[in-house]
C-alpha cells in the first residue's frame, strides 16, 4: 500500500502520482493550466539553492513551484 503525502514532503528523485489539488482561485487555475492535475505523474528533480522552490518533472516538461504552493497538492508515492 502506497502512502499519500503532501507534495512538499517528496524527496528529490522520488516519483509520485498526484492525488488531489486543493488550491482555489488563481493558484488553482494556474496549477491546472500547467498540467498539475490528479493522476499526473511527477518527479522532484531538484530544489533551488535555498530549498525552495522545487523543480518538478511531468511527462515532457519541467515545472517549478514553491513549497507553500506544493502544500495544496497531495501525492501518492510510487
Amino acid at each position, binding site marked *: 500500500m502506497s502512502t499519500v503525502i503532501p507534495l512538499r514532503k517528496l524527496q528529490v528523485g522520488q516519483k509520485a502520482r498526484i492525488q488531489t*489539488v486543493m488550491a*482555489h482561485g*488563481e*493558484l*488553482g*487555475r*494556474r*496549477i*491546472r*493550466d*500547467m*498540467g*498539475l*492535475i*490528479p*493522476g499526473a505523474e511527477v518527479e522532484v*528533480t*531538484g530544489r*533551488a*539553492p*535555498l*530549498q*525552495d*522552490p522545487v*523543480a518538478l*518533472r*511531468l*511527462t*515532457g*516538461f*519541467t*515545472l*517549478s*513551484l*514553491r513549497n507553500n*504552493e506544493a502544500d495544496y497538492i497531495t501525492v501518492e508515492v510510487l
Partner: protein
Amino acid sequence: MSKKITIALAGNPNSGKTTAFNAITGARQHVGNYPGITVDKKEGTAVVDGQTVHVIDLPGTYSLSAYTMEEVVARNVIADERPDMVVDVLNAGALERNLYLAVQLMEMGAPLTLALNMMDEAKKQGMRIDVQKLQSLLGIPVVETVARVGEGMDNLMRTAVEHAREKAGKPWEPLIISYGSDLDPVLDEMVALISKEQFLTDRYPARWVALKYLENDEEMLRIGKPFGAVATELETRAREVSEHLEATLKTYPEAVIADYRYGYISSLLRQGVVSRLNDLENRLATSDKMDQVLTHRMLGPMIMLGLLFLIYQITFTIGEVPMGWLESFFGWLNETVSEAMPDGLLKSLVVSGIIDGVGGVMGFVPLIMFMFLQIAFLEDSGYMARVAYMLDRVFRFFGLHGCSVMPFIVSGGIAGGCAVPGVMAARTLRSPKEKLATLLTAPFMACGAKLPVFLLIVGVFFAENQALVMFLLTLAGWASALLVSKLLRSTIIKGEPTPFVMELPPYRVPTFRGLLIHTWERTWQYIKKAGTVILAISILLWLAMTFPQLSDEQMAPFEARQAEIAALIEAAGGTDVPAADEAAAATEAGAEVSGEEQAEEAGVLVAENEAAVSEVDMEALEEELTEIENAMSEAGLRNSVAGRVGIALEPVTKWAGFEWRTNIALVGGFAAKEVIVSTLGTAYSLGEVDAEEAQPLAERIANDPHWTHANAVSLLLFVLLYAPCFVTVVAIKQEAGSWGWAIFSTVFNTAFAMVVAVAVYQIGSL
C-alpha cells in the same frame, strides 16, 4: 485569390510559437503593443501560393482563462477579430498539456489547425504520435513541424490556408464536451437562457459563456454586468452549483471543468495516438544533468554571478567600440554644424540642445544592444527561468517575485544597464502588485547613464579604490531596491505573493534569427522612446539654461575687459607670470560671490592689471581671456531660469551639501542622467565637457574647497537613488497604466534620496 486571409498563431509559451512566427513571416513583421496594455502585439505577412496571409502572433498562453493579460488578449483577438484560421502551435513532447489550450480554442468554436511542433525532439524522446489518428479524432488538420529548422512550415501554412477557405463563410462550430452529471444539466439550462436572451452571443458561443460563468471568470463577469438581469441570473446559477459541489464533493466548478477537459484529452490520446518508449535517452535528461550543475546549491549561484559579470564585461569591451564610433560621429556632427552655422542662439540650440542631447542618449545604443543580445540569449536558452528559480526565495522575502530579477539586472543590477528597457522587462511579471514594486524600485539600480557621474566623482575622491567604490554603489542600488520594495509591499502595495508555478523550459541553443529579432525589437523601442522624449527635454533644458540672458548692462564689464585684454595681447611681450596667476586667482575668487559683485570684481581686475601690462606674457593673457569667458557664462547661468532654480533649491539641498551648480546639474539629470556631467561642466564654467573628457572638470572639483568626501558620497548616493530619468518615468507610466505611479516614483525616490544624502552628509561632516 480574392480576400486577404487572417491567421492567428496561438500556443503555449516555450512551444516554439515565436520561432514559428519568425519562420513564417521572415522580415515582414512589426511589433507594437495592444492598445492600453503592455502585451506585445506582433503582426506580419506571408505569401502562400500567391495568397497574401496576414499573421497575428497571439501572446503565449497555457489557457484561455482571464487571469493574465496575455490570456485576455488572446481571447479577445479571437472573439473580436474573428481570424479566418487559428493555428495552435503545440510542443509535441508535452502533448497532453498543450492540447489543453487547443481544446479551449475548439470550445470557442474557432477554426483550428494544429501544428505539432518540435517533432524531432519528441521522436528523440521515444515518443510516437499517430498524426492521422489525432486528426480524425479531433476533426481538424494536424501538421508536423520543426519550426527551428523550418521543416513542415510550408505544409502548415498551405494546410491552414486551404482549411480557412473551406471554412470561409460558415458559422463557427464549437466543440461540446460533457462536464459530468453535476454540471451538464446546469450548463444546458444556462445555454438555453443565454441563447434566448442573445446574451453576448455575437462574440462567444452560448456554451462558452455559460462555462465562463461557472468558472467564475472575472473578465466575463465584468462584460456581462451591464446586461443586468441575465447576468445576475447566470451568476446565481453558477453560485448554486458551486455551493452544491462544495457540499457534496468538496470541489468547485473550475476544478471539475479542468478535470473533464484533461479527461477528454487523455481519452483521445489513449486511443492509440501516443506511445512512449520510456527507456530512450531524451533531451530533458540532458537538461536535468545541466541543471544539476547550473542550479546546484553552491555552484549555481556562483555560476550565475559569473555569467552576470561576463555579460557586463562583454557589453563594455565589445560595446565600447561602436559606442566610440557613435561618439566620434556626434562629435564630428557637432563640429561640422558649429562651423557651418553662424554664432548665435540658433547654433547654440542645434549644437548644445539637439546634437549633444540626442547624441548623449544615442551613444548608449550599442551598449544596450549588446546587453539585450546577451539577455535574449540567456532567455531563449532557458537560463533566465533558472535565475528566477534560484532567486525566488530571496526575492519573495522582499515582496518581489523571482521574475523581478530580470528587470533589476537590465536596469543596471549589473552596473551599466538602463532602466527604460528594465522597466519594460517587468511586463513578464503577472501580478500587478509585484510588478508595481519592481517598476518603482528598478530605477535605483546603477544604470549606464549614472556611470559617468560616478566615474567623475569617484575618480576625484576615491582614486585609490575606484573599483571598490563602484562595486559598493552597485550593491547600494540593490540594497535600496530590495529594502524599499519590502517597505512598499508591506504598506501601500500590500498583497499576497503571486504563484511561482512556472515552466523551466529545457536548455536549447537559441536561433540566430530569434536573437536578432528580439534584440532589435527592444533596441528600437529604446531608440524611439529615448529619441523623441530626450530631444524634447534637451531642448527645454537648453532653454532653461540660456534664458533669460544677461542684459547689456550686466554684460558690459565683461565685454570691456575682454576688449582690453585683446588689445593687451596685441601689444604685450613681457614674462611676468606671478601677476597673471594673481589675476586668475582673483577671478576664481570672484566665482564665489554673486553675479553683480563678480562684475565689479572684473572691473577691479582690469584696473589692477593695467599696471602690469608690459610684464604679462601672451599665454597668461589668453588664459585670462578664457577665465573671463568662464566668469561670464557662469554669471549668465546664474541669471538663467535653471540657475535661479538651482539657487532657490540651496536652502534645502545645503543639508546634503549641494550648492546651486550641483542643483542645476541634478535638475538637468531628471531629463537624463547623462546630462549631469555635462551640466556640471557648463555650470563650472568650462563649457563643453563630456563624460570622456571629464578631466578638466575633475580638476576643478578637486581644487574646489567646497567639495569634500562627505558631499562627494552624498552626491553619489543621491544620483543613484533620486527620481528616475524622464524617459523611465514615461515607461513606468506605460507599464503601471497610470501617471499616478509615475509621479509617485519621481517624488518618492527624490525624497528617499534626499533623506539618504542628508544623513550621509551630516554624519560625514561631523
